[in-house]
């Protein structure tokens, strides 16, 4: 009888593994099958010639039929979210790891945990409410690139805080003691000794944050992304973005060509995100290896 149970255990675990691998293979295979044939310059720039593509990059020409504006929109979003969240996340991470103690530390890190758990659509709703509120003061303000960028910054902030904090806390105490023994002040120790050592860990958090900002759809849906806007001219313009393009195509495509474009966009986003997340993992591994064998 025990034998039967053992077999059952092996069998069901095997089934679980096959189901998971099958699902992943099905998903990526399906996207590759439909997306690979359209992957190329035409997907991004439509029917433009090579010379015209150069013009597009220098904003001299508009792309009508292609992913280019969506790609640019996503890059701008990531740039804005990161440039806002990075200084804040670094600052808060350093404070939590090196200065805060006792009750304050517990309270602060609990709050960042809360923020990390807030669903992205609720963050989007917050961005939207903020716009409504500001609209009463400055009537020209509508949902736009600026609001989306700031909301996304809020979304990735807890990741940056957490990775900075753990990267610093994982450093061996001998580093802090040595610096102090050499007469370095605390701020000098942090800037000159601890941060350089923690850099790979922090960097992996940044890469992860880029991935989150690039893939999130719910936040930008409420804060100013539209289906066709071209390249935004200012921070107060509407814009396009890759994940929203995919969502929009899935429900609103009118012909085979648009559907193909949607598959192409989905494949591009999948490749970008998987590369970013794998990259973050590799950096973290490198960082822990360095900590183990080189810093002591």
């Amino acid at each position, binding site marked *: 009888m025990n034998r039967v149970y053992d077999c059952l255990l092996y069998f069901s675990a095997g089934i679980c593994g096959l189901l998971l691998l099958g699902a992943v293979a099905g998903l990526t295979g399906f996207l590759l099958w439909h997306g690979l044939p359209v992957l190329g310059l035409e997907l991004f720039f439509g029917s433009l010639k090579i010379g015209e593509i150069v013009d597009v990059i220098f904003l001299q020409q508009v792309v009508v039929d292609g992913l280019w504006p969506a790609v640019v929109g996503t890059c701008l979003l990531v740039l804005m979210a990161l440039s806002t969240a990075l200084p804040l996340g670094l600052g808060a991470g350093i404070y939590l790891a090196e200065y805060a103690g006792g009750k304050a530390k517990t309270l602060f890190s609990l709050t960042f945990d809360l923020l990390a758990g807030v669903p992205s659509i609720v963050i989007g709703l917050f961005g939207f409410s903020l716009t409504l509120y500001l609209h009463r003061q400055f009537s020209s303000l509508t949902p736009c690139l600026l609001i989306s960028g700031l909301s996304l910054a809020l979304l990735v902030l807890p990741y940056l805080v957490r990775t900075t904090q753990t990267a610093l806390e994982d450093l061996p105490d001998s580093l802090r003691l040595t610096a102090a023994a050499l007469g370095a002040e605390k701020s000098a120790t942090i800037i000159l000794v601890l941060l350089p050592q923690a850099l790979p860990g922090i960097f992996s958090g940044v890469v992860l944050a880029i991935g989150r900002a690039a893939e999130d759809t719910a936040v930008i849906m409420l804060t100013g992304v539209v289906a066709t806007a071209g390249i935004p001219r200012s921070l107060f313009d509407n814009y396009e973005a890759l994940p929203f393009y995919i969502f929009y195509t*899935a429900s609103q495509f009118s012909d085979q060509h648009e559907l193909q474009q949607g598959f192409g966009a989905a494949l591009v986003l999948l490749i970008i995100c998987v590369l970013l997340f794998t990259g973050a993992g590799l950096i973290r591994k490198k960082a822990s290896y360095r900590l183990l064998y080189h810093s002591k």
Partner: protein
Amino acid sequence: MSGTLQVVFSGRRLLFLVTAGGVFVTLSILVFMIVLGLPLFTSNSFSLILTQDWAPDRGFFGIFPFICGTLAIVTLSLLLAFPLSLGNAVLIHLLLPPVAAKFLHRVVKMMTGIPTVIYGFVGIFLLVPFVREWFDSGSGMSILSAALLLALLISPTMILVFVESFAAIPKSQVRAVAALGGNLRQKLIYLYLPGAQNGILTGLLLATGRALGDTMIALMVAGNATAQPESLLDPVRTLTAHIALVMAADFDSIEFKTIFACGIILYLWTATLTLTLRFLPYGVLKSRLNRGLS
């Protein structure tokens, strides 16, 4: 003068302000939603909103069907994903030879990077037609389709936490069970599952949070019907999808105010999960770990 400046701009003070700013923003998310949804609370209609059906043409603005829809999808996806994740964690940590285990672990890690909108996209064109043909009902957009995809979305989180908590079980105990002649099934039942119960609970709670907060899968493949669901093949609307869908309405209407009720509910649910996670008795796990190392 330069003295005060120095105090104000001293590094420590600045860092404290930044951190406190993060706390302020986190709390103001909730405050903002409460303020903007205030008419709901003052006019004594909040309990009606929570319990009524959604039929704006008849004057009913209840989000009860959406609460049910959310809970149905989340529960079903957890029921599907939990055994799947446990099986995979056992495969990775116990059953597979090192090379294959490493491969499966890699794949699971890679899965955490797949954007939700892509699950939704593939769901619409691959899973939904399949569910439609197989069960021969409606459009194929249903609780079942959404829960299947959501299970795929939350499994990696659970698997990674499970594997980590299996690995945290002291080697001495593993060897002791092996020395007593325990086979794999006995190791699993008497050592790994009880030993990793905190980790398993952590994984479940994290996965629940992800499932509750997901918008795109529910919005794209759950069908967004406003009626109360009666079977797993019925289309439903979740709280998250409701927020995304009502945006277009008039800003002063009750219809619009209900999305703040949805937001508040989601915020409170996820906050409860986070707090529960925070106060799990990790001490047990940690002391075991230390004993194992010493």
